């Protein structure tokens, strides 16, 4: 197998790609191609492919570039929106995590104080008078249902609402 080819290969290729074969080449080159197997293959294959290309190019009907341009613009726009939305979604998830941690901490605290409150309830039948106003205020203030708990709960609701609104908007 002679991989380096012959000395004429470059010239034959040049003539073929310029469309000069066989009219615009020297007798010497024609004689060489007739004798050299590699160059004969080159001529046969290149001429066949050139004819095939010409036929295919002239036969095909291509669409308008405008539709492709628009498609590309839309894809780029969607990619840009996705790029922007990714950190926002990350921030939402982070906020959700923080809120969940606050809620768990608050619930743990409430559970601890709830035990004391239940003990108070058990003692309720033994009481001589039932003071509902006093009971409510004791639930709110004494057992921990104070603003310290209520405010993060409201903040959590607002955040969850924001996440829900964002997800709904993104789906649209």
């Amino acid at each position, binding site marked *: *197998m002679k*991989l380096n*080819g012959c000395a004429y290969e470059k010239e034959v290729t040049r003539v073929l*790609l310029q469309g000069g074969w066989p009219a615009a080449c020297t007798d010497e080159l024609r004689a060489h191609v007739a004798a050299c197997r590699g160059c*004969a*293959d*080159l001529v*046969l*294959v*290149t001429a*066949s*492919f*050139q*004819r*095939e*290309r*010409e*036929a*295919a*190019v*002239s*036969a*095909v009907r*291509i*669409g308008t*570039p*405008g539709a*492709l*341009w*628009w*498609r*590309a*613009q*839309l*894809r*780029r*726009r969607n*990619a*840009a929106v996705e*790029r922007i939305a990714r950190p926002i979604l990350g921030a939402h998830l982070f906020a959700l995590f923080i809120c969940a941690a606050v809620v768990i901490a608050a619930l743990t605290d409430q559970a601890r104080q709830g035990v004391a409150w239940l003990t108070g309830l058990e003692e309720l039948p033994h009481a001589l008078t039932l003071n509902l106003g006093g009971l409510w205020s004791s639930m709110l203030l004494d057992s921990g249902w104070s603003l310290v708990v209520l405010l993060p709960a409201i903040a959590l609701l607002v955040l969850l609402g924001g996440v829900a609104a964002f997800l709904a908007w993104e789906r649209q």
Partner: protein
Amino acid sequence: MQRESTLPQLLVGDAPRAAAAPMDSDAFAGFYERSARPLWAYLARVSGDPALADDLMQESFVHFLCSSWQSEGEVASRRYLFRIATNLLRDHWRRPRQASIEEIPEEFFADAVNSAQADSHAVLGPALALMRPRDRQLLWLAHAEGYTHKEIAEITGLASASIRLLLFRARRKIAGLLREQATRPGRP
């Protein structure tokens, strides 16, 4: 065309500069006009499926426009386009085959084709069909498009040093097939 050239910019808005269009819509229209047919011919003859070539050609142009490729002249842009098309074709071949009517090449349904195309394809088509897809790619890029070994390596992602050997073998094989076909009895 005025509408097309202004609205996309509004749509894209403040998109990062890296994703800026490599060319405006007018330049793209010219580039498309000059490059679409050769690209389609490459895809159609290498895949053997004109319908697939239609799809991949459109997808190649969309990928080209979406890429951050900065135009370095038409020749380089076209080479980049062929590279995209080659990758898409490779992805298509790697995907599991689906047996649906969409997958059947249109040639089987076509009842009237251009006679010059039919003659040319009747000669090269059967020989090309017997070649491996990679060999078809190499042969088309080298002999139909006239790319150098270095450019073919850039388009196909193959090592530049191996192109010469692969191309030599593929050329020898298809030349044998073409000669065999020419001498086969029954052929005019």
